[in-house]
């Protein structure tokens, strides 16, 4: 809502020197979100005066017709001016800017030689003076405008305009009336209500109308004018105000309805009376009904739509947009003015259904004063009479449905208890009265909110009125009371450690959008029956390319890697932690919308949860390029599948869990370079090198590696137990075992551990050899075994016996032979 300060001043006697910024500060403190204050014309300096055209000479020797004019600006000598516009004649009154002036936008005006003449200034258009968009011609003023007068003052070229983002609860502030009331309260000044007009006696009924659905409309008022002069122009002052408020002047009839909507907050609609057939009825749409609206769109109407209709059918979508068939046009003289109060929800639904937003619907959705239609419609016909020569048809049509009165009971000390401030009953009464409430009662106040405040329904709403007007700044600060919290949960701590551990291991965290595409499933080489293809779909995705919600973190990571590579970072280790979304098989397709007047039962809550997907927490990494760069120390080490597996171990270690690695074949990994990661019997995820086709599909460098595991499957609730530290010496034995190439090192190690018994302290694979010495299809695995007893120094015989037992078990399980 754009609010010119000069317009407010018409209804509140604000201090003379008050600036828009000063007023804005007060209104912000009262709860109006003033976003900007536009000091229109602040950079304008005169002289800019009213002049009368005395003579015009047409200069024809130029590419376009030019006029050489003499204009009386109140000086002894007329002003000589060059003008390119042609919409004026001798005797017309115009605005002239004289040398030395600066027009809005910093345009300095001087006397200058042009078209072979010395032009001593310029005749101005509305746009040049910053009061309109019209630049087709210069502004011609009424003949009785005083010659030589200061046009800046006279035409209101300087004004501060407050742009207010009105919150949805304050529909009444979508009007000069509402903002002026707030300004009056802020400065403790009287407020003159622009709606307070004396209405004539009702008299005869005007154009016939009836409300068929009282739930759709509880007040419907029509008044009529006849004989409007179609050529009548909107006066300049109204045009300027509309411009300042951000609306374009159209025609007198339209401008008057817009002007009153801005001033009062009551949307109005004007019908061409000659285009109406039969009585008007406010009703819901019939099945299959259509209407072509003013924006030339044919709309299929919904049976819930609220319509204004006559015998011809729908003629307007209530409070939203008029129909084309009854539109007023350049020759309309007889009009029916509609002012009504429609159901907020009905309008809101219609707006959303048809995606049809208008200034009118915007106000109806936020609540319009139900008591305004009589006054607003009367002011409309009076203005059309004054400005357009119309005759007001006596009488009016007033259809209405009864509305129960709203009262709110509130303890007199309720605002005190909400704010933590002792306001006292008198202050509460004063503030509630200021906002227009009628209040009675002693300890418990029975409050009747004013008709323009449908948002005031609860005790806390009223408390807020008192507290905001007393000033949020005047609420004291109370130090937080201390509460005994239990700190982070084990799961929350594990998530923090996971991020720290991966970052410590050289991974950089990325946070990707969780939106993916069906094409990702093919790019990932997922089999047709892979559960990850069963992703949830957004009804209204930002991009039709990515309508699905991720079931894996990998596509986002791949795209982030490609983006980084494209920007020159080729050596990458990225990680992401976050939720994936897994629909539950057999889940209900809808989550019920329970009531809110009580706590839902456990069973009701379960029905809500049942429709939600599983949302487990995952962690994933992607690696490409060098894990260690080449340097003066030696060559680089490219990132490989083992780094990806190690990333899983890094994460699992944070949960004190030991990962068991087994070979697996699982998309999107390379079938020969894919590790399944288990803790106990629980599958955590997979790691390894990506499938070459996946790498190609995402445009990743060859040999890119990745890991993804489900952090939710790690048990964060562990307690590490300290071990016994033997101080006896360690005994070491190295063994080299030859096995068939496909035998997994992990199974050899497991066999060695099992065979070595309790004396084994640790085991470490320190070499893998393939080649002639071990034969085709075989490999040699070299292990360092460390033995130690808790209570004695081991003898050489004991150590050797344990080593032999270990080798024997490896031989038994894996066919390993001790290398000679």
């Amino acid at each position, binding site marked *: 809502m754009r609010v010119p300060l000069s317009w407010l001043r018409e209804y509140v006697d604000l201090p003379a020197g008050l600036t828009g910024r000063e007023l804005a500060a007060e209104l*912000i*403190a009262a709860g109006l*979100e003033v976003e900007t204050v536009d000091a229109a014309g602040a950079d304008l300096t005169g002289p800019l005066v009213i002049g009368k055209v005395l003579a015009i000479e047409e200069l024809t020797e130029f590419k376009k017709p030019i006029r050489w004019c003499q204009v009386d600006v109140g000086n002894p000598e007329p002003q000589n001016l060059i003008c390119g516009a042609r919409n004026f004649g001798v005797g017309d009154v115009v605005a002239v800017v004289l040398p030395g002036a600066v027009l809005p936008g910093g345009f300095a005006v001087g006397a200058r030689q042009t078209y072979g003449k010395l032009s001593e200034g310029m005749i101005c258009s509305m746009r040049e003076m910053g009061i309109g968009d019209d630049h087709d011609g210069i502004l011609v003023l009424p003949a009785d405008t005083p010659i030589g007068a200061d046009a800046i003052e006279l035409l209101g070229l300087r004004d501060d305009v407050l742009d207010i983002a009105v*919150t*949805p*609860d*304050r529909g009444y502030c979508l009007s000069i009336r509402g903002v002026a009331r707030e300004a009056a309260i802020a400065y403790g000044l009287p407020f003159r209500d622009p709606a307070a007009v004396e209405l004539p006696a009702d008299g005869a009924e005007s154009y016939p109308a009836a409300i068929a659905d009282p739930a759709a409309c509880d007040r419907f008022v029509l008044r009529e004018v006849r004989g409007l002069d179609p050529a009548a122009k909107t006066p300049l002052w109204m045009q300027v105000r509309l411009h300042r408020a951000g609306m374009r002047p159209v025609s007198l009839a339209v401008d008057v309805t817009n002007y009153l909507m801005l001033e009062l907050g009551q949307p109005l609609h004007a019908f061409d009376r000659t285009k109406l057939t039969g009585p008007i009825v406010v009703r819901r749409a019939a099945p299959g009904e259509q209407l072509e609206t003013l924006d030339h769109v044919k709309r299929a109407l919904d049976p819930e739509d609220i319509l204004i209709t006559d015998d011809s059918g729908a003629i307007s979508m209530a409070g939203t947009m008029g129909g084309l068939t009854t539109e007023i046009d350049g020759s309309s003289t007889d009009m029916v003015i509609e002012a009504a109060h429609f159901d*907020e*929800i009905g309008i*809101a639904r219609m707006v*959303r259904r048809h995606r049809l937003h208008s200034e009118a619907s915007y106000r109806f959705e*936020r609540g319009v004063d139900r008591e305004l239609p009589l006054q607003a419609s009367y002011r409309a016909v009076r203005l059309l009479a004054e400005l357009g020569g119309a005759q007001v048809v006596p009488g009016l049509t007033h259809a209405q449905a009864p509305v129960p009165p709203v009262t709110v009971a509130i303890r007199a000390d309720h605002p005190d208890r*909400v*704010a933590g*401030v002792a306001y006292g009953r008198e202050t509460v009464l004063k503030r509630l009265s200021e906002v227009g409430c009628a209040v009675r009662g002693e300890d418990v106040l029975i409050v009747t909110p004013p008709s323009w405040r449908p948002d005031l329904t*609860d005790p*806390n709403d009223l408390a*807020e009125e008192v*507290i905001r007007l007393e000033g949020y*700044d005047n*609420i*004291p*600060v*109370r*130090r937080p*009371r201390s*509460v005994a*919290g239990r700190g*982070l949960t084990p799961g929350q701590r594990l998530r*923090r450690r996971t991020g720290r551990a991966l*970052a*410590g*291991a*050289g991974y*950089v965290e990325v*946070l990707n*959008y969780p939106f993916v595409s069906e094409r990702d499933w093919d790019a990932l080489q997922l089999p047709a029956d892979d559960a990850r293809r069963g992703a*949830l*779909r*957004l*009804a209204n995705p930002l991009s039709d390319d990515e309508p699905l919600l991720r079931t894996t973190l990998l596509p986002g990571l791949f795209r982030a890697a490609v983006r*980084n590579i494209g*920007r020159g970072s080729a050596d*990458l*280790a990225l990680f992401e932690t*976050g*939720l994936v*979304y897994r629909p539950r098989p057999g889940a209900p397709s*809808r*989550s019920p*919308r*329970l009531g*809110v007047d009580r706590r*839902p039962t456990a069973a009701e809550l379960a029905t809500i949860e049942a*429709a939600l997907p599983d949302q487990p927490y995952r962690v994933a990494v992607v690696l490409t390029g060098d*894990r*260690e*760069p080449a*340097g*003066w120390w030696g060559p680089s080490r490219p990132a490989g599948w083992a780094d990806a597996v190690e990333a899983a171990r890094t994460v699992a270690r944070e949960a004190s869990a030991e990962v068991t690695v087994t070979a697996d074949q699982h998309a999107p990994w390379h079938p020969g370079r894919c590790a399944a990661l288990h803790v106990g019997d629980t599958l955590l995820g997979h790691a390894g090198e990506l499938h070459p086709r996946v790498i190609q599909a995402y445009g990743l460098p060859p040999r890119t590696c990745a890991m993804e595991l489900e952090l939710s499957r790690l048990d964060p609730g562990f307690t590490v137990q300290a071990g016994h530290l033997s101080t006896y010496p360690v005994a070491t034995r190295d063994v080299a075992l030859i096995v068939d190439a496909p035998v997994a090192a992990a199974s050899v190690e497991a066999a060695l551990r099992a065979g070595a018994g309790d004396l084994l302290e640790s085991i470490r694979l320190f070499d893998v050899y393939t080649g002639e010495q071990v034969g085709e299809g075989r490999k040699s695995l070299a292990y360092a075994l460390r033995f130690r007893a808790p209570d004695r120094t081991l003898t050489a015989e004991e150590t050797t016996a344990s080593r032999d037992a270990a080798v024997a078990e490896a031989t038994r399980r894996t066919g390993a032979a001790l290398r000679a």
Partner: protein
Amino acid sequence: MSAPNKSYDPVEVSSLQPDELDQARDEALAAIAAAGSLEALKETRLAHTGDRSPLALANREIGALPPAARAEAGKRIGAARGAVAQALKTRQAELEEERDQRVLVEEAVDVTLPWDRAPRGARHPLTTMQERMADVFLSMGFEIAEGPEIEAEWFNFDALNFKPDHPARTMQDTFFVESEDTGVVLRTHTSPVQARALLSRELPVYVVALGKTFRTDELDATHTPVFHQMEGLAVDEGLTMADLKGAIDAFVTGLFGGHLPVRLRPSYFPFTEPSAEVDMQCFVCRGASIELGAEPCRTCGSEGWIEIGGCGMVNPRVLTAAGVDPERYSGWAFGLGVERTLMFRHGVKDMHDMVEGDIRFTLPFGMEI
């Protein structure tokens, strides 16, 4: 070699003569001084203090002296041997020092060589910023409450007093899951966690919720469809707006240090009543930039204040929907956008930098923020 003291040799051996002894000592001292290396010194030591050295021999002869002469001879020989031993020790130290000097110089390396061998990692500043914010609340005794990102409309809107078809509901441009009438959405704010916490926890409730939220805004310099919020909630007996202000003060101090003034401006949220926007004084210019002619402040746009979030007293209707008796309990809620906070606290200019995953953006933030 003479046997000790079986008989007395009436003639003193020559080596015990004072001038002989002085000569042996002086020769030893000269040789020690002349030793140019640790190896040479070792030989010198052997020659002048070893078993066959004149001083050692002389020492051995003392026993053969008549008792009357023993003390005097022992004293002289002891002094000579002591002088030699001291000279050896001193020279040994000198030569070791020389060797160390030489070797350590030879072993010098160029310590300015770069060692960027181990890859550097970092956590995303949006993650660490959330942890930092959570820590401020945790230090006040709050706990972290959680909720799903794909959320039921009942939790996201209804339970928070967003009435059906109210404009407030359409203000938060919502992603709907599957269709507009499944009742399932991507949560538009962290506030559904309020309702979940009140339903699942014992009163009083002091929690903070953080995490991803979603609205259908296209990505541009200041908007992103996926963003993060933080929200504190306290529900207890007797809480007032004074407690709310106290908690916000503590939060701002915890996150920005100092004692920056905070102001509340009346506003509207369906789930709080009364509601307010929260501004804090600019931590860079401390409000000085609003003065005429002052240096402009890029952090606050010379407004002097920075809008940090929204807050209010929990709407009693929210308490009712969660089964909390609003006659007995009251509460406050305070929430803010994590991206916005990161932008003004760390001078991030463009939202793209936070969502694109460019490691050049993230690396400087390290492990904590």
